[in-house]
């Protein structure tokens, strides 16, 4: 049963990275879009693309949190207690991102739009960074199971966490650039599509390089994870590399719809590679999944809720994306 819940949890986390992550990435490009006038069209594109969907995408994070605390309460408490600092920072980042985004859309004065826009863009970068350091901390086994035993600083200020943070920002902005290519073209804004294509190519190469370098970092800093990544998880890591290269090729020939799929799959492969790399442990180097899992009487109704909820959720999501991916030429306006 615990394994079933874990599959739901990991699928939710994957969805958060693929959808919610891309919304953060869009904020990254918003930050780099240039001055108020030159960047206006790019920002409008970004706003149209993420406006209707970001709140739904954001719920994946809540989903992951509540499933984790119900199914693996001790691990959840340990992670939250030890990593309070980066998690608090990420939570503030989330507040700032969401509210600044909707505030910017709701005001008409340019100066206010600039202030809210800056807050939106900056928090879009900081939030994934801090969440990435949390991933690095867990993956490298720096979260002890016993409450109060963790090092609240060095648990997340270390090479693996830094790697996690940088990779998270990179992956989010890469995905966003890839998705925005097709959105721009569908809206008839081919020049914008070109711009996002260039950025996607650049980011793709950068993320690939960081990931390669990261393997060396993990070798020194998280030997167990390194061993598993180059062991049982190796096929997934190779798959990710291959999909990443394929994505660069598809971008080069402007196959914007196909590249969405390959780019997303490359990220999926890394995430599930990480899962395999940790298996059967939950906190990186200790606490087995079975030992951490809540007892059966808790997991059974939880799985029922997850299954029933998914049946409700998937068609609703399909409806949402269906409506807003069909024609983005028409202005989506509140």
């Amino acid at each position, binding site marked *: 049963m615990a394994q079933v819940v874990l599959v739901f949890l990991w699928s939710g986390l994957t969805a958060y990275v693929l959808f919610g992550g891309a919304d953060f990435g869009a904020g990254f490009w918003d930050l780099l879009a240039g001055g108020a006038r030159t960047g206006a069209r790019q920002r409008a594109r970004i706003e149209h693309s993420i406006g209707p969907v970001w709140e739904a995408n954001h719920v994946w994070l809540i989903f992951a949190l509540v499933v984790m605390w*119900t199914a693996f309460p001790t691990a*959840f408490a340990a992670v939250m*207690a030890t990593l309070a600092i980066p*998690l608090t920072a990420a*939570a503030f980042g989330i507040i700032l991102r969401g*509210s600044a985004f909707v505030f910017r859309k709701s005001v008409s004065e340019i100066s206010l739009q600039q202030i809210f826009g800056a807050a939106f863009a900056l928090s879009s970068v900081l939030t994934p960074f801090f969440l990435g350091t949390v991933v690095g901390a867990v993956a490298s086994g720096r979260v002890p199971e016993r409450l109060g035993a963790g090092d609240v600083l060095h648990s997340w200020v270390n090479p693996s966490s830094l790697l996690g943070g940088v990779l998270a920002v990179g992956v989010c902005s890469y995905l966003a650039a890839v998705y925005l290519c097709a959105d721009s073209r569908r809206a008839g804004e081919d020049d914008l599509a070109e711009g996002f294509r260039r950025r996607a190519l650049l980011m793709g190469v950068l993320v690939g390089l960081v990931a390669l370098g990261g393997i060396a970092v993990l070798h020194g800093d998280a030997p167990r994870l390194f061993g598993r990544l180059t062991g049982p998880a190796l096929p997934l890591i190779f798959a990710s590399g291959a999909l990443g290269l394929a994505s660069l090729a598809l971008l080069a020939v402007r196959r914007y719809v196909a590249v969405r799929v390959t780019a997303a799959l490359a990220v999926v492969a890394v995430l599930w590679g990480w899962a395999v790399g940790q298996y059967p442990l939950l906190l990186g180097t200790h606490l087995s999944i079975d030992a951490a899992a*809540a007892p059966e009487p*808790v997991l059974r109704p939880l799985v029922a809720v997850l299954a029933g*909820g998914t049946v409700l959720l998937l068609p609703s999501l399909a409806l949402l994306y269906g409506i807003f991916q069909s024609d983005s030429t028409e202005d*989506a306006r509140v």
Partner: protein
Amino acid sequence: MSTLLAAGGSNLTAARYQMALSLGWHIVVACLGVGFPIVILVAEGLGLRRGDRVHRALARRWSKAAAVLFAVGAVSGTILSFEMGILWPGLMGRYGSVFGLPFALEGFAFFIEAIFMGIYLYGWDRLTPFRHLLTGVPVIVAGVSSAFFVVCANAWMNDPAGFRVVDGNVVDPDPIAAMFNPATPVQAGHMILAAIMVTGYLVAAVHAVGMLRGNRGPVQRSAFLIPFALAAIFTPAQIVVGDAAARYVAERQPVKLAAMEAQLHTEVGPGEHVGGVVVDGQLRGAVVIPHGLSLLISGRPDTRVDGLDSVPADRRPPVNVVHLAFDLMVGIGTALLVLGAWLGLSWGRRRDLPRSRWFLRAAVLAGPAAVAALEAGWVTTEVGRQPWIVYEVLRTADAVNTAPGLAVGLVVLIVVYAVLTFATVSVLRRLGPIAGGT
């Protein structure tokens, strides 16, 4: 050891204030998240049925405000999910699996709410009017459900069920029994009604201001009447449910009741204390209704009611805060009932609002008053539960995170929420006088 304790103590205070501030903030926007879609859909439905563009335009203007509120509701709720773990790992680690189920259900409710909110808000020009109206329905259902689910979790903290503690270990967890604990029906019902009342009176208050400034056109009138009537209709029900809640508390959480009523000593046939402050172990300045409390609880004048002195001092909540908060809530509830009756009378006679400007002035006050009742109610419930985070099972002090630095988090939070409040209010104001002009 003593420095450790001192640090733990300040952590506890910091964590409590942080939790109270973020919950107290979230609950206002969360109420609007539950209630506003109802108000908006009523307007949109009226417009559709009568074929008039005015109500549809009103619904659309309101939905712009709802978009802002929904976003800040979502982010302020997210921080709460983080805080449950960051501030109270001792609670989540031990009992997360027992009372986690309603949160998982709530997660799906949030999905449905956010998805259909996205479709509703951005779909005005993309869907036919009727379909557009339909997409609002799941938003309402999900909003009410999410309020229900999260209150299930809170009710469990007040009346823990669905597990046993054997040799210090939690065994036999039964998440369904935990979710449907004895406190759930009254608390959830009371909360959902409160959400509708708070939204109704707040939205109506904004338009009452407009009417007082001389804008009395038909749109402004509808914009006032729809939310106000909705809230006023539910007010009597709220008082009935509140009364049931008080009787429930008397039965299951006698110490909380003693604090709410400032009942210091166990007594047979006690009076009802209205107002007053406990100083040096004496209740001063209270109006006493003879046998009132006894009558309220059981309908008989001679019921024995436990006082605060029925438990040792380290198991008592702070009495003044709880007592005054409770009286404030009840006072406001009663006043709102009177205000609704005023409108009802005038409507019955002449199908119109009362002529007196005092009615509109009172309606302006009703918005903030409903919020005050809401906050006071939560203070009653949450402070009245102290010193327990899980009633008579786990002390708040044993649940708090011992990592250093929670006080810093509190300071940052205060600053962030001050800015957020200011920004939200100014952005809402900039949306302009809703449906002004006409």
